[in-house]
């Protein structure tokens, strides 16, 4: 891996990501202006309307408006939320960490559980445990996320009292996370929502990993290692694990849209104060600055996720520096 080549590749990918985000920004602007009526819909306070008009120059030609829109965006000004009566940026910035925590925990669960299941299934390929697990993963993968969320909340929250019924933290002991106990408390609150997203993801990962494991098992280098007398366990751990990790990273770039979509539903049901719930509440108030800003941030997260996946892959194996990870099997999102 030559330093220059690596650096150039990275620069190209970064430039690409920025271009995509710019295109997303423009697309959202176009979408807003395609909508009928003035941006001040009937649901709004006339005074807020006047404020908006002044800020975004709503009566000027569209090019000027586009320019103002970009300028404001560059300064981090995403507008004023009608429903919350605060700047959109303030409202969003509080929620993004929560969504990232949820997505991160879900991804972790997805990877660990999915990998474990995939390996186990591959090792017992086509026998009874594999068949049962295979059908179970198919079933779970097909469940509507919000339905699973309701069931989990009912069973583990209310009936068994194992986990808290919604919320992100204990309001008495831990309104802010300022001690180890509060970190543990946050994890405890995270279990059910992350499990809802993670288990469905894990089912998909398990199916994928199982197929990948079975494919690798027949490949030459594994057979060679087996012939050399290296223990079966070591083969699994060293070769297949590494490939599994690589393919997971490939797919995790794609998992982000799924996670953010699922996050809207899961956050609403579990009262998790993340971006998804904020976006959905904004719908009910037709607070479109908030909705568009969350669409923007969500897209940025997706692009960043893909970029991160590409970088990790590129670092791990320079051969895999493809144009973009999203070239892989995409019919899952």
């Amino acid at each position, binding site marked *: 891996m030559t330093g220059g080549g690596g650096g150039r590749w990275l620069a190209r990918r970064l430039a690409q990501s920025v271009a995509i985000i710019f295109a997303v920004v423009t697309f959202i602007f176009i979408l807003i202006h395609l909508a009928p009526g003035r941006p001040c819909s*009937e*649901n*709004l*306070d006339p*005074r807020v309307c006047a404020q908006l008009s002044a800020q975004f120059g709503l009566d000027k030609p569209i090019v000027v408006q586009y320019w103002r829109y970009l300028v404001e965006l560059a300064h981090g000004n995403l507008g004023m939320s009608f*429903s*919350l*009566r605060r700047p959109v940026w303030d*409202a969003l910035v*509080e*929620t993004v960490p929560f969504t990232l925590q949820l997505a991160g925990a879900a991804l972790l669960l997805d990877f660990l559980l999915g990998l474990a299941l995939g390996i186990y299934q591959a090792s017992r390929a086509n026998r009874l445990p594999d068949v049962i697990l295979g059908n179970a993963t198919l079933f779970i993968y097909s469940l509507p996320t919000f339905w699973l969320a309701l069931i989990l*909340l009912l069973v583990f*929250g*209310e009936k068994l*009292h194992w986990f*808290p*019924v*919604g*919320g*992100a*933290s204990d*309001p*008495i*002991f831990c*309104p802010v996370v300022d*001690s*180890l*106990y509060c*970190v*543990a408390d946050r994890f405890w609150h995270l279990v059910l929502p992350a499990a809802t997203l993670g288990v469905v993801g894990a089912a998909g990962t398990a199916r994928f990993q199982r197929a990948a494991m079975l494919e690798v098992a027949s490949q030459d280098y594994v057979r060679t290692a087996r012939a050399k007398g290296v223990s079966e366990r070591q083969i699994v751990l060293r070769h297949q694990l590494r490939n599994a990790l690589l393919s997971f990273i490939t797919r995790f770039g794609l998992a982000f849209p799924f996670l953010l979509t699922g996050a809207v539903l899961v956050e*609403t*049901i579990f*009262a998790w*104060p993340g971006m998804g*719930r*904020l976006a959905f*509440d904004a719908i*009910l*108030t*037709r607070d479109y600055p908030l909705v568009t800003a969350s669409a923007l941030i969500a897209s940025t997260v997706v692009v960043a996720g893909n970029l991160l996946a590409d970088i990790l892959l590129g670092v791990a194996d320079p051969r895999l520096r493809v144009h973009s990870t999203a070239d892989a099997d995409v019919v899952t999102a």
Partner: protein
Amino acid sequence: MLSAMPRRFHFSYIVLGVIAIAACERRGGCTTAGCGTLIDAAVTEPATLLPPSSEDIVTNDIGEQLFLKLADVGMSTNTIGDEDFQALLAQRWEWDGPLTLVFHIDPRARWQDGQPVTAPDVEFTFNAYNDSAVASPFRPKLQRIEKVTTRDSLTAVFRFREKYPEMFYDAVYHMRILPAHLLRSVPRDQWKTAAFGRQPVGDGPYRFVRWQAAQSIELVADTTFFLGRPGIRRLIWRFTPNLPVAVQQVIADQADVREQLVTPDNVERAKAAQQLTIYAYRGNVYTFLSFNQRAPGDTAKPHPIFADRDVRRALTMAVDRASLVKSTLGDLGQVPPGPISSLVGIWDPDTRQLPYDTAQAGRLLNLHGWRDHDGDGVRDKDGQPLAFHILVPSSSGLRKQYARLLQEQFRVIGVRVEIDELEGSVVAQRTGTGNYDTALLSRSNDPSPGSGITQSWTVAGFGGSNFGRYYNPEFERIVQLAISAPTRDRARALWRSALETMNADAPAIFLYALANVGAVHKRVDNVQFRPDSWAALLRTWRIPPERLIDRDRVER
């Protein structure tokens, strides 16, 4: 490989150890009387805590702890004269002539920044509540008070326009006194979004601690409160997206109070929970389907459907209100005889109302030209179908259910209804500007019918709470007489007559009045629910030291 294993082993032990130690961190130190934490599982998060700027129920509940009124009603909720009123900010009062009321502020009262509460604060508060720039929804309730002046730093003088039985009640009940020195500099038209509303400073038994957006609001007791130290040290309002989750939290012992369980199912589940005590108290909320009598978006023109009195009467007769209540609430609700709840003493079950009679409804509609000319199952007239929208706040599961029930009831007589579920604030905005067909709204009653009914059902409420713009001069005449009636019996008879007049006009379909059933953790003593405002007496609730649990003991 071999040397790797012990390292992994040690690491997991360390992690476990750390978690165990962290878990022990919880043991706190508060173990005496006056400790305690009370968590309320609340449903809607308020927009602001500034009292004049919000009719939100949670704003009111928290306002009860932060800001004092001059005096307040007692458990009997009597509103005539000054009988059973509890002195709060005002130590004593007297009448100086038939139209002049003088209050003496308690010299011990202090704002939480140390400043004393003074009569100029009272004058400032009255002017703010009355200021159209603040646009307070409580403004119409104060219209019989001409002005408020001060005689000295502790004496406030109220002057009324006319004499009537509830003068004292009007002077004290509607306003929470605000700190002039902190609010004077805030421009009046920005009060709704003022920073003070998110970090209020009051003079009440509790002090504001923090507001975690979308999660919780925390208050802590003011131990030097001049009317007595509050029994419970800390109050937390925890926000949940909807009622079922709030009930779940109380049942799972993650919250202590749920002041309204609403449905029989929730009450059953709460009764089954070991740690809860159930309290029933008079309800103060009624729900109705408001007909907008003006054209949506243009209040100068009449509504194409609802301006016609007979059409409204027909639609009201088409709804089997008693069955709807039975279906959704069982015994926990009743069909009210008008825009009142059981809290208000004028509830008379013999009040004449429109009967449930779909045949009569159909005849009335036919009479006015609404027939199904094109055979599509929906009546129409001059090409316009008898179809309209019902606006419902999405946070209320009960009202969403009602909307679906009403949709079906109307479908049977050939009326097509579409349901629009929007957020509460948007519903408030659209009804406030008259931009709707019908809306399923809930209002809470004041202990006196006079102020509430004037606010919502007379011409004084145009542009305010009289969203449908109902106006009947005869009705208003009777209401005036009822408000100034010298005796309670005379007042009751007049109110009954007024409601009968209103019912005949059918400005709205009055659907149900909830009976309140609340659940509180059984360790809490001296639980009193004042029916008009459940949180009004929170400062008298106590948790005896021997019943303290983990969350009570935390020293923060």
